[in-house]
């Protein structure tokens, strides 16, 4: 292997791919070759770095310089300045929104410095398509230890001591799940990895699979050892093509190295993993539905018990763990359960990965210790709300979760504490909303999603969510009546108590949580027929307030249907017969003059 003076860790996650990292990589490689630097400087395409908002991003090692928003046309200048003359280029440094300070080193950027890496410890550090790089970072040491030095009981014991809980959202203790399946009689057992990441606004699992696929494979091998399974499946969303490709490479390499397949590491233990591509059904994230789907059927849940630990895939004992849960396993085996449990709160140990998005400055993937107040997640790591707008709520837990308002932001990240404020930990989607978000419309959005994804098997979910959606649509269209809120609450209670699976039982949460903290917004919609956030199109008049209009003409330029008449120094006028209610003028007007 040749020695490199500098390694350029260029992010190759989906986010950076779509902002042009591939083109940048090609141009950079050509320039390095042209300048005779290709021998000394090596480009490494890593998995998702996490800081998707400022992509494409690149870390220069060993200096630790972090570059953002790189473009092909900047390549010659960058190579000349930094790699020939040794002067890091300020132009591509991270700029803090608050005081406009530039920060050259990755570890000094608050987005990174406030994080604790466990599940994502290899992100941006290794090339996910090279198994040697994973092994060099203690990769497969955990599997080797579990197979050669530990009994299955000892493996389960360490996971129990770690107090690791399911990171898919429900938070069931992983050690207990494994113990049930281990105790289940049967020759044939299965280990499944749930990579059917379906919550809107969540991309934790995709990023882990893209940046560190071997960690998930190793977690599955250890799980297989614990329950004595021979076969594993990774159930992955078909949309995640890059993750699937990298998993495929990882499985092939692990087999070549004798880390998967027959007689792993000479231990006499055999285990295989196959990838199964989902076909786009949210409900398949539910464990019994996922198993039905692998069996080639409609992915509908079934009542439990029997639990999958006794009767799962093909009616055999099965454990299903989420990607992030499995990525934590190898380190727990190497360092011990007590090490893992050393950070966190009383009942929530370790770290949690969040996908931070929406109206927040630093969009991306972050891993934080349990117990961190949500406020720190949004303001210190997330860098606050852009455009000087006010924070309104943060949505946790996707369609099963809820919105947390300003006055509850000091709630610590902890399964029980988050449940107390009406949301759930969920799989890790954290969508920040500013003052321009209408909470009734948000509730309608989630109900529309649930209603669309309801599998139709049980009546409360199939019919109940449809009725709730109709009520919410009525309210958003200005047709709300007295008693609608009470009807929503009554339906929510019935669905919560009687639906078959977790998806249905929690379907009403987004409505209940917005009713709890933003009830007056519902009332304003119903009684005054006004949407305070100006998002519900039917409640807008599409007129210009002459007192507030600054006559700037921005709305006139933005209108796609020539419905706005405007001349210099004159108030704009909207011709409603031509207006298509596209909201372009609302978005462009800086003075709130359109209502």
């Amino acid at each position, binding site marked *: 292997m040749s020695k490199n003076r500098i390694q350029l860790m260029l992010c190759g996650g989906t986010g950076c791919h*779509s902002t042009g990292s591939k083109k940048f990589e090609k141009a950079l490689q050509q320039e390095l070759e042209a300048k005779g630097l290709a021998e000394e400087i090596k480009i490494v395409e890593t998995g998702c770095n996490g800081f998707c908002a400022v992509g494409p991003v690149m870390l220069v090692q060993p200096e630790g310089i972090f570059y953002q928003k790189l473009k092909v046309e900047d390549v010659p200048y960058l190579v000349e300045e930094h790699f020939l003359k040794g002067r890091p280029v300020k132009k591509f440094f991270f700029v803090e929104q608050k005081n406009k300070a530039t920060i050259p080193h990755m570890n000094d950027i608050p987005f990174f410095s406030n994080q604790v890496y466990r599940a994502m410890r290899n992100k941006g550090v290794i090339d996910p398509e090279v198994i040697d790089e994973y092994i060099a970072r203690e990769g497969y040491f955990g599997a080797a230890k579990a197979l050669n030095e530990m009994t299955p009981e000892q493996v389960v014991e360490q996971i129990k001591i770690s107090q690791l809980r399911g990171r898919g959202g429900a938070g069931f203790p992983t050690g207990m799940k494994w113990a049930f399946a281990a105790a289940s009689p049967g020759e044939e057992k299965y280990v499944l990895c749930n990579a059917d990441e*379906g919550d809107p606004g969540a991309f934790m699992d*995709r990023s882990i699979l893209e940046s560190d696929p071997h960690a998930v494979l190793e977690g599955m091998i250890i799980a297989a050892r614990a329950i004595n399974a021979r076969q594993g499946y990774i159930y992955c969303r*078909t949309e995640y093509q890059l993750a699937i490709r990298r998993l495929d490479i990882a499985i092939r390499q692990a087999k070549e190295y004798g880390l998967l397949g027959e007689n792993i590491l000479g231990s006499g233990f055999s285990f295989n993993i196959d990838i199964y591509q989902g*076909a786009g059904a949210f409900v398949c994230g539910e464990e019994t539905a996922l198993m039905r789907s692998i069996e*080639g059927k409609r992915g509908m849940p079934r009542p439990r018990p029997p639990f999958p630990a006794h009767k799962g895939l093909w009616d055999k004992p099965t454990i299903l763990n989420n990607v992030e849960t499995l990525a934590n396993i190898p380190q727990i085996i190497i360092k011990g359960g007590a090490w893992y449990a050393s950070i966190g709160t009383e009942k929530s140990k370790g770290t949690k990965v969040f996908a931070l998005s929406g109206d927040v400055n630093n969009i991306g993937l972050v891993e934080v210790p349990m117990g961190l107040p949500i406020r720190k997640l949004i303001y210190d790591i997330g860098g606050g709300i852009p455009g000087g707008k006010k924070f309104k709520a943060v949505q946790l837990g996707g369609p099963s979760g809820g919105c947390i308002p300003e006055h509850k932001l000091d709630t610590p990240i902890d399964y029980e504490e988050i449940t107390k404020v009406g949301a759930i930990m969920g799989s890790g989607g954290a*969508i920040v909303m500013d003052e321009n978000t209408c909470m009734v419309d948000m509730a309608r959005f989630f109900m529309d999603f649930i209603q669309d994804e309801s599998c139709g098997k049980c009546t409360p979910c199939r019919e109940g969510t449809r009725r709730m959606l109709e009520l919410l649509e009525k309210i958003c269209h200005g047709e709300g009546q007295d008693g609608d809120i009470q009807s929503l609450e009554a339906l929510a209670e019935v669905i919560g108590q009687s639906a078959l699976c977790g998806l249905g039982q929690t379907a009403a949460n987004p409505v209940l949580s917005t009713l709890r903290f933003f009830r007056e917004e519902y009332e304003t919609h119903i009684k005054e027929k006004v949407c305070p956030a100006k998002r519900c199109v039917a409640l807008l008049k599409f007129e210009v307030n002459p007192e507030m209009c600054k006559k700037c003409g921005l709305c006139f330029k933005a209108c796609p249907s020539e419905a706005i008449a405007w001349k210099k120094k004159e108030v704009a006028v909207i011709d409603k017969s031509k207006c298509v209610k596209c909201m372009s003028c609302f978005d462009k007007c800086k003075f709130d003059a359109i209502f």
Partner: protein
Amino acid sequence: MSILTRPSHPDITDAMWDKIDEIIDANKDIAGSVIGVLRMSQDAVGYLPVELIDYIAEGMNLPASQVYGVATFYALFSLKPKGRNIIKACTGTACYVKGIKEILSHITNKHGIKEGETTADRRFSLEGVRCLGACGLAPVMIVSENIHGNLKPDEVVGILENYK
């Protein structure tokens, strides 16, 4: 070799039928493989005509009702033909908060199609899809495999002009 009779269908060529036979032969003995078979067949033909679903059912030795049930359950499968350019607009929460609704209404105004519809000339199909997980680029749409992020409502029509 397949012994099934191929129904005639205007959208399925002989080469496609050969490919479908290959897919069925490789999978018919694997339990639970029907979803993969449907996916690969749809990749080959572009969509799943009912005649094709019947054919797959027979080849896989499964009841046609079961295969039809699977094909209509999952969002990935389409029983209707699609446009040359498929616009997949992300309707995840982050994209919603960042204004995908306005993007969609611009497309609808310009091309006269709503979510789930195809233009009469089969130039565009518009789909609202589940979260693409590219929330850092919200609002996002994918047009024929190209990702367009940080969309502005007034730009979207111009972007689509590049797809014929």
